[in-house]
């Protein structure tokens, strides 16, 4: 009897917590994905810079670009699950998608260049993509 009461109480508590854990809005999801993308791009830019300065090894930089490419592709994929509830969030998502997509393309190129040629020369593209992501991020955060 006592055990079943404890179990019921515990289940109730867990249910309450799950209910209370915030359902994120579409904007929050977009911000989260864009933050991940920003982090990936910024890490890659820094990593490539260190490699060019001979302060980092090829193995570490290759691993970094591999990891960051995976991360930005995951961020892009996460946008698929963002529910659109208004025309505004539609345009927001489009902007986010465009920015992240540009970033992903640049990052994948950097990764491939390093693996194949041992050097990266599209840092300008990476940085441009980073700026694009940051500006969309700024707009979304400003509108919150």
């Amino acid at each position, binding site marked *: 009897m006592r055990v079943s009461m404890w179990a019921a109480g515990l289940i109730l508590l*867990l249910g309450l*917590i*799950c209910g*209370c*854990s*915030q359902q994120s809005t579409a904007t929050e999801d977009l911000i*989260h994905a864009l*933050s*991940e993308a*920003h*982090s990936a791009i*910024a*890490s890659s830019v*820094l*990593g490539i810079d*260190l490699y060019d300065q*001979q*302060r*980092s*090894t*090829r*193995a*570490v930089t*290759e*691993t*970094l670009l*591999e*990891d*960051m490419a995976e*991360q930005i592709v995951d961020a892009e994929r996460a946008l698929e699950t963002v529910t659109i509830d208004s025309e505004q969030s539609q345009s927001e998502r489009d902007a986010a998608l465009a920015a992240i997509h540009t970033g992903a393309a640049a990052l994948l190129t950097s990764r491939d260049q390093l693996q194949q040629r041992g050097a990266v020369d599209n840092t300008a593209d990476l940085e441009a993509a980073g700026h694009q992501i940051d500006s969309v991020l700024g707009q979304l*955060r400003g509108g919150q």
Partner: protein
Amino acid sequence: MKKVLGLALGILTAIGGFLDIGDLVTNAVVGSRFGLSLGWAVVVGVIGICIFAQMSGRVAAVSGRATFELIRERLGLRVGVLNLGASFMINLMTLTAEIGGVALALQLVSSVSYLLWVPFAAFALWLVIWRVKFSIMENVAGLVGLFLIGFAVGLFLLGPDWGELGRQAVHGVSTSNEKVSTYWFYAVALFGAAMTPYEVFFFSSGAVEEGWSVKDVARSRANVLVGFPLGGLLSLAIAGCAAVVLLPQLISVTALSQVMLPVAVAGGKVLLAFIILGIVAATAGAALETTLSAGYTIAQFLGWSWGKFRPPAQAARFHLLMIICLIVGVGTLMTGVDPIQVTEMSVVFSALALPLTYLPILIVANDPEYMGEHVNGQALNGIALIYLVIILAAAIAAIPLLIITGAGQ
């Protein structure tokens, strides 16, 4: 002279052995997102593990009984089985994370995917458990793990604004986009990373492995009280490096390769090499400890013969169990699950499981039947009880915070 060397060795191995993949990842993540504002959680955790490890080491040395033997004898079967089940599962999770950590570090050296390193690493670990003497294993892993002191060196080389870091530690980071619930989630995670339960199983079983007696207790006290806090300082250094280089650029750590960025900034390839070697040693050492802990917990509870000091044929089930654990760890990692996420989950669950082992140790440390005259003094009991409250609070908060924050997102 030999005594001084022995003491130094003990302290150095305690420092090097303190850090594992959980500390590495959690501190780096926290540093990159919260700066040093969660530094207090590391301090609280370090004091806690000092108390906990010292008590369990003393209990093992004086009573000759290791942790899980005591749990069954003293707390009875039902509580014991529950305790065993939970501790074992979490141990297994931590083991998986550590093997993942070794593989990730090897990827940083070679560019070969970590997935290919996993079986190789696990086999090498098994070989060490099978054939290498306990003390050699401890000493080598501990001393090479000490290379992680490179993080402290790196932090100095980065020439940070110490005042700013100090302000972060006390007042928090002002420009943070993080929620309060995430802050507390990571506080629990850091606490769990510092107070990993396997450390204690291992410590107490190690005491029996090496045949400690009462006079070894004083030496162990020195190792713990000096070694662990220094290890804690290294944790803070890891967070500090991330805070100085990654936080300003809003880079949040999600991969081990990102943890290398501040290191490369600070000291170039040389420092990078040191640290990666240190990571391999520290995570390998931790993987060995968790594997042995998995063996110790089950074998001690069920009354099997155990111990590395015995030939494997004399502790057959103990060794078979460890082989199975390693295989399970490898299997889990080969499914492609992110080792970093496994690590983060393992530290949170460590915090969840802490009361299960802390409480029995506290009880036995006060039991004159086992401890004779070496029961806890009043001062120690006072602090130990305060920590019991902290541990219970962290354990209760762990799952709700995990759910609310979606594992720290």
